């Protein structure tokens, strides 16, 4: 039994191997040890959605996962989102529709939005609202975010 462990993760295409304390949350490992500060720490108990990112193609709350649990996985943070395809379309659409103000929720919001479009989510504002209900935004009032995702969904995803 140990309180440290060596892990290897692939973050945005780069492989990192580190020995870390087992109590470290994934979000803190990504930000403090690897310098990927694009993903934000919000509530640290899984409610606000700010730290949502993609692991092996699925969204997770990186504050509710130990870094050691990410051993062997491929992680995509906001820094790793492409400028083309679904991620690029959403980034463009968020900018065009003013779907962010302070930007704190945006990395998590985009992770959820990408998941919605990739799962074949259609241009249905109620469904979009339900899908992003796990991501708090305290600036926009959500209308612009829903519009941004809607417009990408309307154009068939990409």
């Amino acid at each position, binding site marked *: 039994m*140990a*309180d440290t*462990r060596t892990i290897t993760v692939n973050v945005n295409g780069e492989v990192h191997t580190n020995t870390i304390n087992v109590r470290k949350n994934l979000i803190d490992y990504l930000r403090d040890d690897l310098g990927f500060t694009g993903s934000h720490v919000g509530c640290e108990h899984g409610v606000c959605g700010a730290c949502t990112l993609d692991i092996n193609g699925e969204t997770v709350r990186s504050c*509710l*996962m130990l870094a050691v649990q990410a051993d062997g996985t491929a992680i995509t943070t906001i820094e790793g989102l492409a400028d083309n395809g679904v991620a690029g379309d959403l980034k463009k659409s968020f900018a065009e529709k003013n779907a962010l103000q302070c930007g704190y929720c945006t990395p998590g919001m985009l992770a*959820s939005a990408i998941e919605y479009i990739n799962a074949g989510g259609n241009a249905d504002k109620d469904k979009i609202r*339900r899908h992003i*209900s796990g*991501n708090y935004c305290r600036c926009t009032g959500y209308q612009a975010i829903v519009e941004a995702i809607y417009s990408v969904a309307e154009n068939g995803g990409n």
Partner: protein
Amino acid sequence: MKAASFLYELPEDLNTALQLLNSSDIDVLPLAGGQSLMPMMNFRVSQPDLLVDLNKIDSLKKIDSDSNSIKIGSMVKYSDMEKSDLIKEKIPLINNVIPFVAHSAIRNRGTIGGSIALADPAAEFPSLLVSLDATIELMNIKGTREVKSEDFFTGIFETDRKTNELVTSINIPINKSPKKFGFYEITRRHGDYAMAGAFVTTDGDKKEFSNSRVVLFAVSTKPLRIIDIEVFLNGNLLNDVSVQENAIDIINGYEFEGDLHNDTEAKKTYAKVSLKRALGELNG
């Protein structure tokens, strides 16, 4: 806040996990999806000496069925259940409820076993399992035992599970034609824990209530099965509005647990609204 220090083990088989759980001199907790345990550890409500991570134990991740029941391994995630054709076909109620359990990022990690071992009275799955008359399988190093879901939940975050036991699977009986069901919950935000909710199940091949179950959640310390209402409903037509109204009136005779935001009277009102809408769904 961050979790206090702990030791961590990642066993690859069930036996090793059970051995670790059997340590009597230290405080050991199993880690399933972590979607409730991690926040509790971050708040330091929970400070185990040793965390036994169950995520590498493949034998707990299976969904099997025979002619009488579906057996869902305790480490099956909500997102796995959502994708299971077997569950969709045999117990559609589960598929209908899953979108209401938190949010997709939580469902990608959270497990059925974790949810029921935690026994949050406002969570959907404990009451869902009582409404389906599920059986919980538990194991320790000495062997296996089964507990009816109704007896498993004993209070707020309290179950019949001993500290050296692990929930290994959930067995849900299946009928020739799937049960008809109604489900409704009241939440502040989609995906949040319910302020109140109701499940109604009844035999799928009849126009009258038959072998019905009525279970309320988020209004008591545990899943609240109301047998008085079940007895009243059985034999009556599903679509009889006056029967539904009289069934809801039975709730007036019950006391409910208030919480931080809602007093006992508010909970009673929410319980009645939830039951009314759940009953209304039966004919849909």
